[in-house]
């Protein structure tokens, strides 16, 4: 990037996101940054009755009340001494200078959730995921798989449609339950407020990183050092002319500023729509009961050429399919350096060995269903909802796969760790049997 383009990029990020220690509360971002927002119902002396938007987080002592309009707009903030949640009544530390008008908009604890999230992130997450969420914290070099780089706004294990981003619920689920089989541990003992704060901060980092990534692509198009070298090579343009053109674009509200606005709006919309209920993966039919027949059907689907499951996961499900030894392409269409499969972040990935019984995105049927239906974002695991028609009418002959088929596959995947010879065959033991006839073999006494 040319120095002036880099300066502009830094300035945009600093203006709209600030720094981790001095964050900017940018209302355009669809984040729950404040403890609560609401309007004044009544206020005099040290008492303030508020109507708050729901849901809101707990309001602790010392919460700032920021006046957003009315006769107190621009006045210094007030601070809450005690808060009555039932009556939504605040007792302030100091008496009000004047009585606020009814309906005066207020923000309680402006930006506090993000500030809390930053502290918790620094305590629990930063040493793996890095200060900027780039997945390059000091512990990251020793971990395999690598910690997530949030800056592309892509999270692997979600229960949202393939074209959508992660929902808050998905991120919270990962924080609460960890990612089995990786170094991401469970943070179940965090309070609801704490995991909310971390979730919002992680989303903030993801949005900041994605804006930066999109701006680099935008500015790099004509103003990277390579682009400038190309443009000046034939002598038709000089470096000074290019710089002047850049500065003109920066100062023209219809040019770069409009582009930045458009990037951020698109990104905000993407995140916002991903939180809606319609973005969730919802099966049309309930889970097919776990039975030998269903497992056998799932096994047949698994081996079907058009679904290509075995090409990655191997015929027996050991994660050793032919694709693990093939040359794959990266996002730019170039061959990857090594054989096998790579994710969006350029990391070599292995298809899951289904015999381990470890499901990184969760072991609920809906989790496995989501993996099959919407894929694993950022990895070569495809979304079957986009490659195959989803047959709402089971009699539709144009569809290769139905909801029930996905459930058969889910049942087959569940059965793999327990199969004796071949899943779905008569020899498979589905019912649990005592591990050993000799009970002492089940336990080892430490004598």
């Amino acid at each position, binding site marked *: 990037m040319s120095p002036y383009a880099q300066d502009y990029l830094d300035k945009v990020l600093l203006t709209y996101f600030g720094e981790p220690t001095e964050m900017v509360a940018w209302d355009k971002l669809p984040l729950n940054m404040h403890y609560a927002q609401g309007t004044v119902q009544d206020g005099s002396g040290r008492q303030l009755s508020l109507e708050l938007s729901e849901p809101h987080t707990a309001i602790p002592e010392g919460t700032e009340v920021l006046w957003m309009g009315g006769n107190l707009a621009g006045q210094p903030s007030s601070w809450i001494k005690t808060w009555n949640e039932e009556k939504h009544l605040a007792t302030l530390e100091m008496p009000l200078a004047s009585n606020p008008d009814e309906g005066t908009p207020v923000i309680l604890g402006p930006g506090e959730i993000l500030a809390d999230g930053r502290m918790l992130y620094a305590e*629990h997450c930063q*040493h793996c995921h890095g200060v900027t969420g780039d997945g390059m914290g000091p*512990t990251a070099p020793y971990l395999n798989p690598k910690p997530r780089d949030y800056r592309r706004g892509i999270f692997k294990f979600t*229960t949202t*449609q393939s074209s959508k981003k992660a929902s808050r619920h998905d991120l919270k689920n990962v924080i609460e*339950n*960890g990612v*089995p089989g990786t*170094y991401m*541990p*469970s*943070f*179940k*003992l965090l309070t609801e407020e704490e995991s909310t704060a971390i979730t919002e901060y992680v989303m903030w980092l993801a949005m900041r990183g994605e804006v930066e990534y999109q701006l680099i692509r935008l500015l790099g198009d004509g103003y990277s050092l390579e682009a400038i070298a190309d443009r000046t090579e034939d002598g038709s343009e000089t470096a000074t002319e290019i710089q002047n053109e850049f500065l003109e674009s920066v100062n023209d509200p219809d040019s770069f500023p409009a582009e930045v606005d458009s990037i951020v709006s698109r990104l905000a919309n993407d995140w916002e729509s991903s939180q809606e*209920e*319609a973005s*969730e*993966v*919802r*099966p*049309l*039919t*309930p*889970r097919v009961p*776990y039975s030998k027949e269903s497992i056998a059907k799932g096994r047949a689907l698994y081996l079907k050429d058009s679904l290509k499951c075995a090409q990655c996961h191997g015929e027996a499900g050991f994660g050793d399919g032919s694709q693990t030894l093939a040359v794959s392409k990266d996002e730019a269409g170039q061959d990857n350096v090594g054989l096998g499969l790579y994710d969006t972040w350029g990391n070599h990935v292995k298809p899951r060995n289904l015999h381990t*019984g470890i499901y990184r995105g969760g*072991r*609920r*049927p*809906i989790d496995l*269903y989501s993996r099959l239906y919407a894929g694993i974002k950022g990895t070569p695991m495809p979304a079957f*909802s986009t490659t195959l028609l*989803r047959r*709402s009418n089971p009699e539709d002959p144009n569809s290769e796969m139905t909801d029930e088929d996905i459930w058969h596959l889910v049942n087959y995947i*569940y*059965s793999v*760790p*327990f199969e004796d010879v071949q899943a779905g065959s008569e020899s498979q033991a*589905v019912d*649990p*049997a*005592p*591990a*050993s*006839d*000799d*009970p002492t*073999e*089940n*336990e*080892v*006494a*430490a*004598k």
Partner: protein
Amino acid sequence: MKWFWCLFFAFWPTLTVALCLASPGLGWWFPGEAASPLGQRIDDLFYLILIICTIAFIGTQAGLAYVLFRGAYDTEPEAVTKKAWHSHGSHELEVIWSVIPAIVLLFIAFYQMDVWAEYRVKSAFPRDKMETALKRVNQKRTTKDSLALAEVTARQFEWLIRYPGFNDDGTLKPLMKDPQPTDLYAVNDLHLPASAPVMINLRTMDVQHSFFLPELRIKQDAVPGLTIPIWLEANKQQTYQLLCAELCGWGHYKMKARFVAESDENFIEYLRQLEREQNEDRVDDEPEPSDE
């Protein structure tokens, strides 16, 4: 200067004893009373050993102070000057201060054996009481099945818990050595019935960890390759801390979990809740699901 050193060496043991006496009131002692019958017996043993050590400590420090002050006094100008007395030792004294501690140690070794056996020797586990507890939660089991109600597997840096699932008739299956399709899983959240001796199987997936319930005075290393049975009994229905007491890697400090001791009904309800969550297919709660 010699009086300074006499006071210096007498001051620290005095301060140590004073601090030890004050520490229970300052909350520097155990995390509350032992919350299990076995824990109370372990505490009793601890206090017995502490009393023996305190007597020995005060005795030896008083002896040291006497020798220091006496020696310093003897070199004062006004004191009757004594010549230094050299000795090659006393066999009688050597025998006395070897035999007395040996007797004390042997006494402790034999005295604690019952508690140790009950805690760690499997044949001394309160098996009958454990079986009664399993009956209380209506678990169908044969004499071949494990007495354990859950398997706790430590891994960097969390506690994975595996419970048996339910039979078709609603009774609790026995816990199998190997994972079963019907098993129920939780992480960092161990629930077991209170007021009854219950057993868990402890394992580790990677390095050595240590299963530590400080309030119950239970601590057991989890050793790779071994499945170690531990029994425990919480006196009250409440939430306790579950920690890792073995430095197991950079995230050791994160390896915190909760142990919830609850009524039999709540324990079964918790397992039912896990079963519901585990079988969640997002269909029933949405009568008309949206399509993409």
